[in-house]
């Protein structure tokens, strides 16, 4: 069992495998995403309160889900790398961080754009946006620590520990911000949270969520391949690859 894991988690094996997987993920991400956007932008009925401008949730909500999901993946990979010393796990964590930060940023921007027609302001301190902002800081902290430490192994372990500490804190932060927000909310905030969703809106939303997942899979595989090549640049399998070129 352990040998099997070691074999599948060798960067060289991963590099060969991922080359075959990436096109599948990329193409299906594109197809599902296009279909989801079509349903969301053209087929789903307008919201009875917000009209057409609600449609940005088809990007905003899946992006927010991804931002949290990717942080979880990052923390779990880092934990695997820390506990069982599997280098591929460290590479996946490092590769995922900028993707997660980008999704968080996307969620913030789309949330802000949504805010303008909703409340007339580009930024409001509502619970979800504030939580996303703090999550962005957590991502930045992780990436900053990774790049600040020269030795790769130590950098991975240190930022991995930080990711795990962050995961423990995320529920606490989320709860605190929710609670803080209920004290200060205006009447408009209630609409921002989940209204009961019409099935015609739910399907495009879920499709977009799946599309984003597939997109993440494709991109993280590609970025991890780069990490593997860079980190192992002095190892035989990379040298052989270069020589073949």
């Amino acid at each position, binding site marked *: 069992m352990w040998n099997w894991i070691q074999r599948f988690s060798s960067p*060289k094996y991963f590099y060969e495998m991922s080359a075959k997987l990436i096109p599948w993920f990329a193409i299906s991400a594109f197809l599902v995403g296009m279909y989801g956007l079509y349903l969301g932008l053209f087929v789903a009925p307008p919201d009875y309160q917000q009209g057409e401008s609600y449609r940005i949730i088809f990007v905003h909500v899946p992006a927010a889900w991804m931002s949290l999901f990717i942080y979880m993946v990052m923390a779990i990979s880092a934990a695997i790398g820390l506990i069982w010393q599997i280098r591929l796990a460290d590479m996946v964590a490092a590769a995922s961080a900028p993707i997660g930060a980008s999704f968080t940023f996307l969620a913030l921007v789309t949330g802000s754009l949504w805010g303008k027609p909703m409340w007339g302001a580009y930024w409001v301190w509502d619970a979800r946006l504030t939580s996303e902002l703090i999550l962005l800081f957590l991502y930045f902290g992780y990436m900053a620590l990774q790049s600040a430490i*020269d*030795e*790769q*192994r130590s950098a991975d372990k240190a930022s991995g520990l930080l990711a795990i500490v962050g995961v423990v804190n995320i529920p606490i932060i989320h709860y605190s911000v929710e609670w803080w927000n209920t004290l200060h909310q205006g009447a408009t905030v209630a609409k921002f949270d989940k209204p009961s969703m019409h099935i015609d809106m739910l399907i495009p939303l879920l499709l977009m969520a799946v599309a984003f997942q597939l997109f993440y899979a494709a991109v993280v595989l590609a970025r991890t391949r780069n990490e593997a090549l860079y*980190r192992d*640049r*002095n*190892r*035989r*399998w990379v*040298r052989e690859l270069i020589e073949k070129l």
Partner: protein
Amino acid sequence: MLEIQSLECVRDDRLLFSDLSFTLAESEVLQIEGANGCGKTSLLRILCGLRLPESGNIMWQGESIQSNREDYYANMVYIGHLPCIKADLTVLENVRALLDTRSLSLNNAVIEVELAKVGLESYEDVPGKALSSGQRRRILLAFVALSKASLWVLDEPLTALDVQGVELMESMIVAHKRAGGSVIFTTHHGMQLDCEMRSVQLGDYAHAELRE
């Protein structure tokens, strides 16, 4: 007593040494030799458990040091490049502080005797900042002597010591060996030891070939 099995060390993606194995029994003195940058300090830090090897095991009294940590640390003492001396504590307080982390409380008289042996007699109440670097290293010698450790791991113990200091260190090592203890050390200066000694040449374990 101490057994090293197939140790491999990587630093900054460079393989420093691999497949290093040796044992150290009681009353043995072992010198780790090698050129600059070949991994002597890394090896000693790995032996102390301060650094993880890429692969390999270190066994103390038959058990891996990861599982036997408390026992290993109670019987081992490490001196590195840094002086470990607090400038604002007196010599006596410094020695006490170092011994306290090992849960050793000795009374002042015992410590003062040892301080006299290392040439710091009547320096008990002098703060660390008033001492020269050679004198600070001598405090470490007193600490090592008082530590009740059977294994001494010494990285460049002759740093900053003058001629008498060097002789003192040499005689301490010889005395420790006679008393049944073991010493592993590295040094750039030549050490004239009045006893039997083995050495391990780290350069022998460095492979130029690339890792998989």
